[in-house]
C-alpha cells in the first residue's frame, strides 16, 4: 500500500493497493473478472450489461451529521477505482467549507465519466446528500444521470432471514470475513470533522480516512460476493456456498427483480438443502405463488401438495390448491375435498374458519349441492 499526499486537485490523499490485496476472505482482484450485469439487474439497474465490477467506481461519503438536510456537510468523499494492476482510493476532502464548490467540482470531475458507481445506501443517503451540496453550490441537480449500483437493498433481501443486522459492519463480520479493529464508530465521525475545523489539525482525521478506506474495500468485496451469486442465480444455478436461509433471501431478491424462473430455482434449492419447518412452510408458499404467476400451474400444485404433506399449519396451501382444482382443472370435487381437509385438520382462527366455510359453501353451490358434503 502506498499513500500519496495531494496527488491531484481536491484530492488530499491517494491510497494505491495491489489488486492482490486481501480484504477479509477475498482478494480485490476478484472484481476483475466479475460481470456487473447480473448484479446490476438484481439491483434494478439494467444498463450495466457487458461491464465488469472493476469498471465501476466504489464511493462512500462521510458527513457532519447523521440526519439529512441542507445543513449537513459532506466533508469526505472516498472513491475507489481499478487502474492498471492497482486499486486506487482517492480521498476528496473538504478542507474549508468556504471552498466547497472547488471540492465538489473535483469530485464531479472524477465520478462524472464513470460508467457507474457502487455504494451502500447511496440511493437514500450519499447521493441525495451530495446532490444537496451541489444545489447549494449552484452545480446541481446533476446526479440523476449517474448509474448507482446500491448494494444495500439487495443485501437487505439476501440476508433478511440469515442475519439480524444488515449493516455493512455486520456483513463484514458474517459474510466477508473481515473484522474491523480500532475503527471509529460511524456515529462518532462527525465529531472528528468538527474538531478539525476547530483546531485545523488534519492529523486527527486519520482514523476517519482509514474508516472510509475500509468501507470502500468492503464495498468491493461485497459487490464481488453478491456479483458472483447474482451471476449464478441468473444462469439458473443456485450458488453452491449459500446457506439455505441466504438462498431464500437470494430467491426473494430474484423475485423482486422480476426473475421468476431464477427465483423458483433458488426457493427450490433452499428447501432441498433443508430449512426448519416454519421457514420451509413459508418458502413453499412463496414458491407456489411464483409458479402460479409464471403460469406453471402443475408445478405450483405440486408445491401446494408438498406443503400439505409436510404438515403446513397455514390454510394458504389448501386454499391455493383448492383454487387450482377449481379454476385450472375444473375439478370441483377435489377442490371441495381440499377445503374440507383444511377445515378438519387445521387449528384455525374464527376468521379463517368462516372464510373456508364460505369457500366450501360456494363450491357446493357450484356443484348444485347445499351445505357441506363429504368428498368421494
Amino acid at each position, binding site marked *: 500500500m502506498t499513500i500519496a499526499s495531494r496527488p491531484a486537485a481536491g484530492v488530499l490523499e491517494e491510497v494505491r493497493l495491489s489488486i492482490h490485496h486481501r480484504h477479509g476472505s477475498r482478494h480485490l482482484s476478484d472484481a476483475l473478472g466479475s460481470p456487473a450485469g447480473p448484479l446490476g439487474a438484481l439491483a434494478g439497474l439494467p444498463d450495466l450489461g457487458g461491464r465488469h465490477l472493476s469498471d465501476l467506481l466504489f464511493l462512500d461519503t462521510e458527513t*457532519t*451529521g*447523521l*440526519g*439529512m*438536510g*441542507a*445543513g449537513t*456537510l459532506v466533508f469526505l468523499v472516498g472513491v475507489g477505482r481499478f487502474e492498471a494492476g492497482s486499486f486506487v482510493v482517492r480521498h476528496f476532502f473538504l478542507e*474549508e*467549507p*468556504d471552498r466547497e464548490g472547488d471540492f465538489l467540482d473535483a469530485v464531479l470531475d472524477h465520478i462524472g465519466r464513470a460508467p457507474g458507481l457502487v455504494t451502500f445506501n447511496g440511493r437514500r443517503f450519499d447521493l*441525495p446528500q451530495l*446532490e*444537496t451540496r451541489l*444545489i*447549494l453550490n449552484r452545480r*446541481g*441537480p446533476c446526479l440523476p444521470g449517474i448509474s448507482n449500483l446500491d448494494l444495500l437493498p439487495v443485501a437487505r433481501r439476501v440476508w433478511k432471514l440469515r442475519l439480524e443486522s444488515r449493516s455493512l459492519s455486520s456483513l463484514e463480520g458474517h459474510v466477508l470475513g473481515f473484522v474491523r479493529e480500532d475503527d471509529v464508530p460511524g456515529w462518532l465521525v*462527525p*465529531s472528528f*470533522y*468538527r474538531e478539525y*475545523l*476547530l483546531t485545523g489539525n488534519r492529523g486527527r482525521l486519520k482514523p476517519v480516512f482509514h474508516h472510509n478506506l475500509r468501507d470502500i474495500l468492503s464495498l468491493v468485496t461485497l459487490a464481488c460476493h453478491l456479483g458472483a451469486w447474482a451471476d449464478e442465480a441468473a444462469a439458473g444455478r443456485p450458488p453452491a456456498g449459500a446457506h439455505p436461509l441466504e438462498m431464500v433471501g437470494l430467491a426473494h431478491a430474484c423475485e423482486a427483480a422480476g426473475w421468476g424462473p431464477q427465483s423458483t430455482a433458488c426457493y427450490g434449492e433452499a428447501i432441498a438443502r433443508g430449512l426448519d419447518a416454519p421457514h420451509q412452510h413459508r418458502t413453499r408458499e412463496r414458491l407456489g405463488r411464483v409458479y402460479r404467476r409464471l403460469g406453471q400451474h402443475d408445478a405450483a400444485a405440486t408445491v401446494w401438495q408438498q406443503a400439505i404433506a409436510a404438515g403446513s399449519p397455514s390454510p394458504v396451501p389448501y386454499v391455493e390448491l383448492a383454487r387450482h382444482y377449481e379454476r385450472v382443472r375444473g375439478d370441483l370435487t377435489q377442490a371441495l375435498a381440499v377445503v374440507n381437509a383444511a377445515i378438519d385438520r387445521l387449528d384455525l382462527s374464527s376468521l379463517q374458519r368462516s372464510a373456508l366455510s364460505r369457500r366450501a359453501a360456494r363450491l357446493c353451490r357450484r356443484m348444485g349441492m347445499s351445505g357441506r358434503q363429504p368428498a368421494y
Partner: protein
Amino acid sequence: MPLQEVLDELARGKSARNVTCWRTLAGRPARLAPFPSWLHPSLNAAMERRGITSLYSHQAQALEAIARGENAVVVTPTASGKTLCYNLPIVDHVLRDGSDRALYLFPTKALSQDQLAELKDLCGSELNLKTYTYDGDTPRSARTAIRSAGHIIVTNPDMLHTGILPHHTKWLRLFQRLRYVVIDEIHQYRGVFGSHLANLVRRLKRVAAFYGARPQFILCSATIANPAELASRLIEEPVTLIDESGAPTGEKYFILYNPPVVDRELGIRRSSLLEAADLATRFLRAGVPMLVFARSRLATEVLVTYLKRAAAGILPGVGEAAVRGYRGGYLPHERREIERGLREGKIQAAVSTSALELGVDIGQLDAVVMAGYPGSIASAWQQAGRAGRRTGSSVAVLIADSSPLNQYLVNHPDYFFGRSPEHGLINPDNPQILAGHVKCAAFELPFQRGESLGAAPVDPILEQLAAAALVHRGPERWHWMAETYPAEEISLRSASAENFVIIDVTQPTARAIGEVDRFSAPLLLHEEAIYLHESDQYQVEKLDYPEKKAYVRAVSVDYYTDASSAVSIKVLARFQDDPSRRPGRSSGEVLVTSLPTMFKKIRFGTHENLGSGPIRLPEEQMHTTAYWLYLSEEAYSGLRPEELEAGLLGVANLLVHIAPLYLLCDVRDIRSVVEVRSPFTRLPTVYVYERYPGGVGFADKLYELHDELLAGCRELSAACPCADGCPSCVGPASEVGPGAKRATLSILRAGSKDRLRQLTGEPRS
C-alpha cells in the same frame, strides 16, 4: 318570527335587567364589482358554475392590488368570501404559467384541510391544478410527488419550520418558482408565536432569494387595531390594506349580558355557563338555529349535556340529535357532517370551544351565544360573525363571567363596538427568538459575512455560535457545523429552547402534547396543576424537574389552578421614563426571580377559591422587559402602609386584567409585582413584566397606553358593585387586604386629578 319572540322576552322579561347593552347593527346591501377583464376564462366559467356572477368590492380591490404586484392584507369579517381574494389571482396566475408555485400558511392543520377542500371545489377537475396539503399527516409515499408537482402547497408554520426549509434542496421546484405566499389568520401570529413567524418569513424569503424567487405576500386578518402594521412587520415589506367589506349583512343585534350578582359582599355572580344554558334553551324552544361557544372543553361538555337534555324535552321526535358538540380533534369529514347538519336544519345547536375555528361554510345561523368573553375582541367578533343572514336578522349574545376583563367589557360597550383597540404585537428581534432562527437559517444556507436575516444583523449572534462551536467561521461565510438539527430544538410556540415537555400518560402509549418554557414551568406544571391543552384539561401527576418533563393525565374538573410565587424584580436598564405623569411611568429590561410558593384551585365561572396546596420547586430567573408605574409622595401620603400595599396590589390586578384589551395577549402573558418601596425607584411601584424571556413588545406598548390603562382601571373598580374588592375588580379583600378597593381608587384618582390639573394648566398646590 321565532327569533323575535326570544328577543322580546329578553328585552322585557325578568332577565332584561342583566342586559348591559343592546346594539342594533344595521344591515348593509352588497357592494358588488365585476370580475376583472383579465380573469382567465376557465375561472370565469368555474365561478359561473358556482352561481357567482360578480365579486364583492373588497375582493375586487384585493385582486387589483395583487395584479399590481403589491403585497396585500385583507381584513374582513367572517363569511365575507375572503379566500377568493387570494385563490382567484393565484389560480389565475397558475393557469397561465403552470410552472409557478404558491405556498399557503395556516396556523393549524384543520384550517389547511378546509382550505384544500375550498381550492379543490374552486378548481374542480377540469382545471389542471395540483393542490396538496403538506403536514405531519402527509404520507411519506406522497411527499416526493407533492414536492415536485404541487402548484399550491398548503401547510402550517411548524411544518415549514422543521419539514420544508431545512430540506429546501428537495423543494427546488417550489422555491425556484415561488410566486405567492399566503398567510391567513395573521391576528393569531402575535406575541411569541408571531415573533417566531416573522423570523420564519425571513428564512423563507432568504431561501427563496437563493433560488432567485421573490414572492408576493397576501395576508388575511380578523379585525384588530393594526392589521397593516402587523402584516408589514411580519413580512418586513410594505403592504396594501384592504379593510372595507363589500359583503352584504342583514340586521344584527348584539347583546352584552351580565349574570346577576348572587353574593354582593364577595362579588359573586351567577355562573355564566348556567346563564348560557338557559338562554340557549330559549332559542332551542323557539327553533332558532345557533352556535354556542364555551371557553373550555369541560364547559362545552357541560353545555352539550344540558342542552341535549333540554332538547329531548322540547323537541320530541328529534330530541338529542338536534344538539351536537363540535370539538377539536374532529376529522374534517365529521366537521363537514355537522356543518351540513346545521345548514340543512337537522342540527339546531352546535356547542364549540372558543379555541376551535369553524369551517368555511356553516350556512346562515340565527344566533350565537358566547359563554364568557373569548379572550380578545377580535375573536369575539369572529365568533359573533357566525350568526348572520344576508337578509333577515340575527343575534349574538356575549355572557360575561366574573373576571375583571369580562366585567369591564360588558360595562363598557364602547370598547367593544368602537374601533378595535387590540394591537397585534411582535418582536422579531427578541434576542432568544432571533438567535434560534439564526441557527436554523445557518443550517439552511451559509451566511455571508455582514449578511442579515431580514432586518436583523446577525454577525454578533454568529460570533457567539462560533464560540460555542455550532458554526464555523470561514474566510467569507459562516457554516453550520454541529450535528444537531436546530429546527427540531426550537418550538414556534414558546420563546426559550429550554422547555419542559408535557407528556400525556392517559393512554397506555404516552405522548408529548406540549411544551412550556422554563420560567413558567414551576407555575403551570407543579404537581396537581390543571394544565389546559386545546381546551382539554389535564392534571399534572409528576413533575420531573431535572429531566424537564411533566407527566399529565386527562381529567374533567370544574376548576383551574393558579399558582403564586414570591417574585422579586431587579431593573437592569431603563429604556423610557416619564416622571411628569402621575403616577410616573417607565419601561426597561428587568431580571425577574420567581420562587413558587403555593397554588389555588379556582372554580370556573364564579372564580371561587376551592382549596390550595404548597409547591416545592427551586427558583427560576428570567431576563425580560417590563413596564412600571411609581407613585409620587403626595399620591400615597394619606394611606397607611398596609392600605398602600393593598392599593398597589389592587392596581396591579386591574392592570394585568385590563391590558389584554389593548394587546392581543392572554392574561397569562403578563404578570405583575408590587413593591411598597422599590430599591430602584425608591417609591411605591407596580411592575408589569412580560412572561417570555426578552419580551415581545408588550412592555413598550403598555408604557405608551399608560393613561388609557389607568383610566380603564379606575372606571372598572369604581363601577364594581362590590363592597371592598372582589374577583371582578381589584381582587377579593381576603387576598389583597382590607380596604383594597378604597386604597386602589385613591391611588388611581390621585393620578386623574393630577392629570386634570396638567391638562387645565392649574398649578399644583
